[in-house]
């Protein structure tokens, strides 16, 4: 059974003066209608780059892309990586949509919110300017903007941060897309607004039966909304599993590090935030072995020394839970237990 979006062995590189930046490295993931896939990783790990490739939003003259990203549409599959620019353009907004981290800079400052929402609708629907504004008002109501019929004529700078992101969501969903890619949609917002936006996305997903890819650097936000989680590090996916897999049975030292850096309340007391020491790798000259090795506290336990010499493969140790580590899962669990 194929899922709605299937990304396979996606590579995105940027030729620069200092060398090739391998921002997305043999990346594979998939997400089905009604399902939410979270892609988690530190800033700079290649989350945005991979998904911009799915949307066809990279500058073709300055980007090298290989691999495939197949959308299984009602009228047959389309690989957006090999399809023509015009074909992909006609999928944007309708088959797939994207919202971005900073809703202020992502909205055009000179056009009203209503015009910006209606513009997308007019692209795929016949109707007068008035119909467009009516549709925009309807969408603003759906995303929970109070007094939508008058706010539809406002400019972005008249909206608060949270309302702007709601307006972005309204804009992205105006043509009822099958896939919504939300790139750090709550990072720029207050904590209380964050959870409102996430809840809104979840509600809209039920209503429209969308596939959602939620990109975030914060594992904390995904527990309630995601079905599956991909953890990215240095342009590669290092772990891929269900929410329970990732939270209760993590198999990769980097995921463990991420989990430890999420503030949690257990035993009635809150644990201190523990960031992973060290710096993410340079994507121009990746280590010949595991990209996480310089920061990994378990690499010395791999006696073969493979961490330094061979890139671990992303392997399935059962039931679709994938991990990219030389260390045996049982050994890792024992080491973690010993530490605790």
């Amino acid at each position, binding site marked *: 059974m194929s899922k709605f979006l299937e990304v396979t062995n996606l590579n995105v590189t940027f030729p620069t003066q200092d060398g090739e930046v391998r921002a997305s490295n043999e990346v594979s993931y998939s997400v089905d209608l009604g399902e939410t896939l979270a892609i988690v990783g530190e800033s700079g790990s290649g989350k945005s780059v991979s998904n911009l490739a799915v949307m066809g939003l990279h500058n073709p003259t300055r980007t090298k892309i290989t691999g495939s990203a197949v959308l299984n549409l009602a009228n047959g599959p389309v690989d957006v990586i090999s399809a023509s620019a015009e074909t992909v353009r006609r999928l*944007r*907004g309708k088959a797939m949509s*994207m919202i*971005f981290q900073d809703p202020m800079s992502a*909205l055009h*400052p*000179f056009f009203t919110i209503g015009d910006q929402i209606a513009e997308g609708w007019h692209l795929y629907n016949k109707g007068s300017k008035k119909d467009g504004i009516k549709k925009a008002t309807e969408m603003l109501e759906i995303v929970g903007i109070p007094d939508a019929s008058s706010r539809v004529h406002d*400019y972005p700078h008249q909206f608060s941060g949270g309302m702007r992101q709601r307006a972005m969501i309204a804009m*992205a969903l105006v043509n009822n897309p099958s896939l919504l890619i939300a790139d750090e949609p709550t990072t720029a917002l207050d904590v209380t607004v964050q959870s409102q936006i996430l809840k809104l996305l979840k509600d809209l997903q039920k209503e429209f039966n969308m596939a959602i890819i939620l990109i975030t650097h914060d594992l904390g936000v995904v527990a309630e909304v995601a079905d599956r989680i991909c953890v990215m590090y240095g342009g590669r996916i290092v772990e891929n599993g269900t929410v329970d897999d990732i939270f209760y049975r993590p198999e990769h030292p980097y995921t463990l590090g991420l989990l430890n850096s999420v503030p949690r309340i257990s035993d009635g007391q809150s644990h201190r935030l523990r960031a992973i020491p060290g710096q993410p790798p340079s994507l121009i000259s990746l280590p010949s072995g595991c990209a996480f090795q310089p920061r990994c506290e378990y690499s010395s336990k791999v006696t073969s020394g493979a961490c330094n010499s061979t890139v671990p493969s992303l392997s399935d140790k059962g039931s679709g839970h994938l991990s990219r580590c030389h260390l045996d899962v049982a050994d890792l669990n024992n080491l973690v237990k010993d530490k605790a």
Partner: protein
Amino acid sequence: MFTFVLKRLAYTIILLAIVSLTIFFIFDLIPVDPARLVCSKQCTPSLVEANRQRLGLDVSVLEQWWRFIVGLFAGRTFGEEGIAITCAAPALGYSFSRHECVTTIVAEAFPFTLSLALGAFVLWLSVGISLGVLSARKKGKFADRAASVFVLVGTSLPTFITGILVVLFIVLRFNLVNPLELGNWHNPFTEPLGWLQTFFFPCATLALAYAATYTRFTRSNVIETSSEDFIRTARAKGLSEKVILRKHTLRAALAPITTIAGLDFAGLLGGAIITEGIFGLNGLGRLSIKAVTQTYDLPIIVATTLIASAFVLIMNLIVDIAYAYIDPRVRTT
């Protein structure tokens, strides 16, 4: 928006008053006595005093300024009983060396300046913006390089050199324009060809330097705007590149151009001294230069200075309103 316009209007009127008053004070400080200048060889102190009175310089600067303002709205009478001359509103003064109301003199000169400024403005905006957009779109390619050569030439050639070259080669060498008719006035509506003959080359000369600057400015603004997040959003919606450029990119990239274009245009309305001089156009620029260097005709000098600064202030107002129309974020401030 309405209160914004009202506020800006009031602000402009106040500024106009202050600037004009300042100009009167500055001319008062200049150590040249116009009353003595217009005096004949057998000058006596009483004749000088009589001249001073005729010129209206016998009262305080504030009074001079006030009379000028009143004259603008109500007309004004110059000279004493018997040989009094009345200039109708808007009276800008009376030139005793030319025996004419300054308003009449200015009204003769202004069509030259307006033609030159407007023609140049249209030329440089259309050339500058289209070349700038083209070279931004073809960044690094042949068209971009060709445009950058144009920018280099346009910005490094002073207008007086271009002007002289144009006159020498195109006008005199190839006889495209009869040198005797250089600078002749033709009504653009009844004699469009004659008007073009007089004004095309001066406009092109004047436009060259501006077009080059505007090409560079447009290019960098379009490139910068293209990398804005909201352009990525427009693309994510599924809009075509054509719509993205025309609607989303240009709107944001050209907004700042409104401001400088308005001010550059206003500057030229005060008179393009060099170009008018080279092409023998009797516009405001030439009028002021002549008034300063040949006769020290104070009423004309004051009037042309005031007109030039008024153009700048009024265009500033227009630009501010236009900008508020384009960029809604400005309206609320």
